[in-house]
């Protein structure tokens, strides 16, 4: 796996740029990852990032869009505003988590 340096941290990423080791993520990486996909993080973003990190720790997999919405109480429509076009993927990307599977 290629490595790259983000916010002064050397991290492993896959071909799509997702961190491959969620443990390598720290909170100071999020704004940098967000910048790479054209996002500026607000409190509303952070609420979801923290939810996703906690949920991943408990479940061992990245929450799907539906799970993120039902568990955090943020409507899907709002997730599309916060993380335009591809909210599930973008939330995972910024949170240093694998792309959600949810689909097999």
């Amino acid at each position: 796996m290629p490595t790259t340096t983000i916010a002064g941290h050397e991290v492993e990423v896959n071909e799509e740029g997702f961190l491959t080791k969620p443990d390598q993520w720290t909170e100071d990486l999020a704004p940098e990852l967000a910048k790479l996909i054209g996002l500026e993080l607000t409190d509303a973003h952070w609420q979801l990032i923290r939810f996703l990190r906690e949920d991943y720790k408990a479940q061992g997999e990245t929450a799907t869009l539906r799970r993120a919405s039902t568990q955090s109480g943020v409507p899907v429509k709002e997730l599309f505003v916060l993380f335009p076009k591809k909210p599930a993927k973008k939330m995972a990307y910024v949170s240093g988590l694998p792309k959600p599977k949810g689909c097999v």
Partner: protein
Amino acid sequence: MENTTKNLVVLGAGTAGTMVANKLRKRLPDSEWTITVVAKDDIHDYQPGYLFIPFGMNTPQQIRRSSRQFLSPDLTVVMAEVERVDAEANTVHLEGGRELPFDQLVIATGTTPRPDQTPGTEGPEFHKSVGEFYTFEGAVALRDQLARFTGGRLVVHITELPIKCPVAPLEFAFLADDYFRKRGLRDQVEIVFVTPLDGAFTKPVASKTLGHLLEEKGITVETDFMIESIDQEERVIRSYDEREIAYDQLVTVPLNMGADFVAASGLGDELNYVPVDKHTNRSTAHDNIWALGDASNIPTSKAGSVAHFSVEVFEENFMDAIAGRPLSHSFDGHANCFVESGGGKALLLDFNYDTEPLTGSFPLPKVGPMSLLKESRANHLGKLAFRHIYWNALLPGRPLGLPSEMSMAGKVPADA
């Protein structure tokens, strides 16, 4: 004298519930175990047949039977809806107030399309210009609808994954291409395939092969489309990111969810699927509760083949569990799916938790007769023949001779 007979309760009499009840009845002596199957009605549909009904490739009569006829006479059958499961008290509450105590519980109540979950689906045009083929009634209505269709835009649409038989919407698009070609109308019909995924299918290798097929057949693909609503008056579907796709005939696959009693019992995830260990199908919350078939949250296709393979593994593990032994068998997520590609051909996909769909031959290495990940006539005939195998061997619990564990012999990993 104290009654020492134990109770195994199986909720659901579909593919998984019927197989598991019949198989365990052969393994468990009547004097030790009472097995009760709760079925919501006396209807057992061969669900893969729903896909064929709209195109007249199966008649409705061919795919509908009585549930009871497939359940061993040595089982206790109760026709009722489940209200909730009290996992702490080991009791199933049925609608109408009846209670069934259990020592072991198998939840096999599947997954169901939920048109009520997308605004605008259930209007006056439902089962008309807003069609679906995931129910018997829907498939029959769509057959009549397609018969009247003489031109315009046909939109085949998936709401959200996971869905039962994830290849079925693609097959629908392929078969629609074939159907309108045969009617001499293909030039007048535009076919659009709309998916929330970023490609034709969930597995990269298969997605590539299937994506090529869509292109070859002139079917347009609209990806990353998360539907917000259907507008029956304007005849458009709208996504959360405010895209609109117009249709003349919509064929939607509504959101699929597990049974409502699963949620009411506090046993489900956000889509009412029961969280289980993916190798044993045992509930992660209760040691004496298991979920089989589409009702569980295992990360593989919701498909009859998975139900079949996982039931065989479960049977052994269940015998271990009731004898107080550690579980000795492990399910690998093996799925195998026929994909009808039109023109009397089909592809066959074979994959599990860890392995992408392979090329090669099935079920016998190098001999086949069916080929993996490639269109062939034999695959199509295999798919058609499976209905008979399903009624006559699979449901009664007779061995099919297919290994539940995926074998790599004679198969070659394809390049992604």
